[in-house]
């Protein structure tokens, strides 16, 4: 068989690694979502110019991604990457809908390789977790492959230039470290996840519930250790902002979202999220409570299932494709360890998120058009006109298809999860009731 070899680096794994790397190289060179990637370059310039993360506008996330960009800045400086990007005059007409500054394909490739580190590490932890519970190397390697060559994982890394895989990494590490009783480190990873993009904060209930359920007698000591780790990490990460007076700027990811918005769509988004997120928090607490009350002989294995549920619940509020990466590792694990019925929605999710992400494909191909002339400007313009025509346009249709399919896959995952928990959804919803009567 493909993976049937006791060594980790068997022939199959080498092929998977090669496919994952080559795919990222190709996509990374060809595609770039410049609205985000050029922002990373601007933040890097702010850092090198001596303005750290928040002295000059441009960086709006908590500090961890900025620190990773700090390291990336140093890497680019030492490998001879002297030109990061430029304004493309031919694309100036896109402003204000899209930005007209593009980073170079070489810059994008190096960034892709940097982001790939997190993809690789998440895939390794998936491998480790599946192996730990199943002792099945083939299954563990399939888990590795599902993530590392997952279409949406590749595109979010290489075409999107987004760092959400790091978010997934911190979350899955916190889970794995708690299981191995490395509570301080687990607390540190959890804190880093939260200070990267906040969403891993949703796992707080299930992580605390695990400590309580696993070690009823000494859970408080373990909890204090984990909190100590988190507090140390928060202080270490936030210290520069506390010292230079930009602490509140480092929280703008939260505060600005709750701030002023204009337009019906933005208002709808604001108020619907204000309504949904408290519901999600209640559901997270309920899942943790349910976990504590569940009878189980294997707490760790059950814990993984509930972590998965926690991750899915976050996405009952429709999200952009990159956020989905937070859920993906746990979905892969349950698909391979608990119920094969998750495989189909997982595959749909992979494709749907990729469709959703590539709805800006014309803009994403702007880099190779501008720097390589790979697409003649007039052809590129024609494509742009189709995608962003007045009224209903290709961009809207493409992103709507991707978004709807992505949400359908989430619903499908929830459906399978409920069925797997013995809840007959069809009966509850009276689907097929007439047939039963007959």
């Amino acid at each position: 068989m493909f993976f049937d070899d006791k060594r980790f680096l068997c022939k199959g794994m080498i092929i998977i690694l090669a496919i994952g790397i080559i795919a990222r190289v190709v996509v990374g060179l060809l595609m770039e979502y410049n609205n985000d990637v050029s922002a990373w370059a601007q933040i890097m310039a702010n850092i090198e110019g001596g303005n750290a993360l928040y002295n000059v506008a441009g960086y709006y996330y908590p500090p961890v991604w900025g620190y990773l960009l700090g390291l990336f800045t140093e890497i680019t400086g030492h490998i001879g990457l002297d030109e990061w990007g430029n304004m493309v005059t031919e694309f100036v007409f896109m402003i204000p809908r899209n930005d007209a500054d593009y980073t170079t394909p070489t810059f994008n490739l190096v960034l892709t390789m940097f982001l790939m580190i997190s993809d690789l590490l998440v895939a390794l932890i998936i491998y480790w977790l599946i192996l730990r519970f199943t002792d099945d190397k083939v299954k563990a390697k399939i888990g590795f492959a599902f993530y590392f060559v997952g279409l949406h994982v590749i595109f979010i890394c290489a075409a999107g230039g987004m760092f959400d895989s790091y978010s997934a990494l911190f979350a899955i590490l916190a889970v794995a470290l708690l299981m191995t009783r490395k509570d301080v480190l687990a607390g540190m990873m959890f804190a880093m996840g939260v200070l990267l993009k906040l969403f891993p904060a949703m796992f707080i209930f299930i992580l605390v519930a695990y400590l309580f359920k696993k070690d009823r007698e000494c859970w408080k000591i373990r909890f204090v250790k984990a909190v100590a780790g988190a507090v140390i990490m928060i202080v270490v990460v936030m210290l520069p902002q506390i010292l230079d007076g930009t602490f509140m700027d480092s929280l703008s990811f939260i505060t600005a979202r709750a701030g002023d918005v204009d337009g019906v769509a933005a208002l709808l988004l604001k108020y619907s999220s204000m309504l949904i997120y408290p519901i999600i928090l209640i559901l997270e607490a309920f899942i943790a409570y349910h976990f504590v009350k569940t009878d189980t002989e294997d707490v760790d294995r059950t814990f993984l299932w509930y972590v998965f549920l926690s991750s899915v619940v976050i996405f009952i509020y429709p999200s952009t494709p990159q956020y989905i990466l937070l859920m993906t590792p746990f979905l892969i694990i349950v698909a391979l360890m608990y119920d094969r019925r998750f495989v189909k929605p997982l595959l749909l999710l992979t494709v749907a998120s990729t469709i959703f992400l590539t709805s800006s494909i014309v803009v994403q191909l702007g880099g190779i058009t501008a720097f390589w002339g790979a697409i003649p400007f007039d052809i590129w313009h024609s494509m742009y006109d189709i995608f962003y025509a007045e009224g209903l346009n290709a961009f809207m249709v493409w992103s709507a298809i991707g978004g709807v399919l992505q949400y359908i896959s989430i619903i499908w995952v929830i459906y399978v999860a409920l069925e797997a928990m013995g809840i007959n959804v069809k009966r509850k919803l009276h689907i097929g009731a007439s047939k039963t009567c007959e």
Partner: protein
Amino acid sequence: MKFFDHLPVIVAVLILAIVLVGEVIVSTDSHDDFSSSISVDGDRVDFELGSRNNHVYEVLSLRNTLETPENVFIYYDKGHISAVDKADVSTGARALDENYYVQQLVHTLEVRGINTAKIVNAEALKELMSSDGKGKSVVMLSGSIPSTVYDGEEDSLILKWIESGGRLYWLGNVLGKYISSGDSLITKENGTTLFLGAECIQTDQVWGTSTSEGDVFWDLLYFQNNETTYGVDPSKLPDSAEYKCIGYSDGTCSTFTFVTHGSGMICVVGGEYSNNQRMDLAHVIAAGIGPTTVLVEDVKGSVSGSVKGTIARGDSVYVIIGGLYTVYCENHEVI
């Protein structure tokens, strides 16, 4: 296998180290990591640039520049109402209000080599404009002018100050139209004429899609803002006006218009508040671009460590390291 037994710990320690190294880099990177110097050699200027990391650079030799001002003053007074529209805010971004813009501009000017920018309130502005304007620049992004220096008449302090050699960089609304007096905003019809000789400000929200005719600076200074709202329509300027348009153009107005006023100059910056506008403006101030500035020569290259070069002599040499994503600038006067 032991490696895999401890995999989560190994990965956690690795990622911890990566983040902490990044944190140290972010906290220690500074303007001092770069340097530039020039020496005049006949009709040539030799330059030497230093950069710890690898970057593209650009050296511009310019003539008829306004010498780098000893002081740049940025007007901001929360006690005087401004007349600025709210800027669009990206998701997760802090709103770019007047106060934040002012802070941002100070930091951006530091990257451009101007470390002396001071924020002045309405009273301090009055004091400043009571003296000769030569060698001084005032940036006003309030959209309104405080009543301490402007009463809508020809003999207003601000107008006399510009005539004496002061430089006014204006953005945010129609120049000369609004006077702020505490909480009240007084509208002065035809106020622009006092400054520019005609009512020539465009108020429609427009974005330029081409570059200003004959301009080279849009490329050399890596301009990014192309919104021309509140820009100057040069066709309406008096025939006697000495002016220069640079940047992006909507076919009528440009993102930057420099108009000579007495011995001084007024620079009207197009567009509503944006980060791109701020970065462009900082370049223009630092490079000393004025109504008659011309490019003598530009030299491009790559620097890692240090690099030497030579360029034709002009009045000043403006150094940019990092290109569009500028990490360092310095303006050297050629004496």
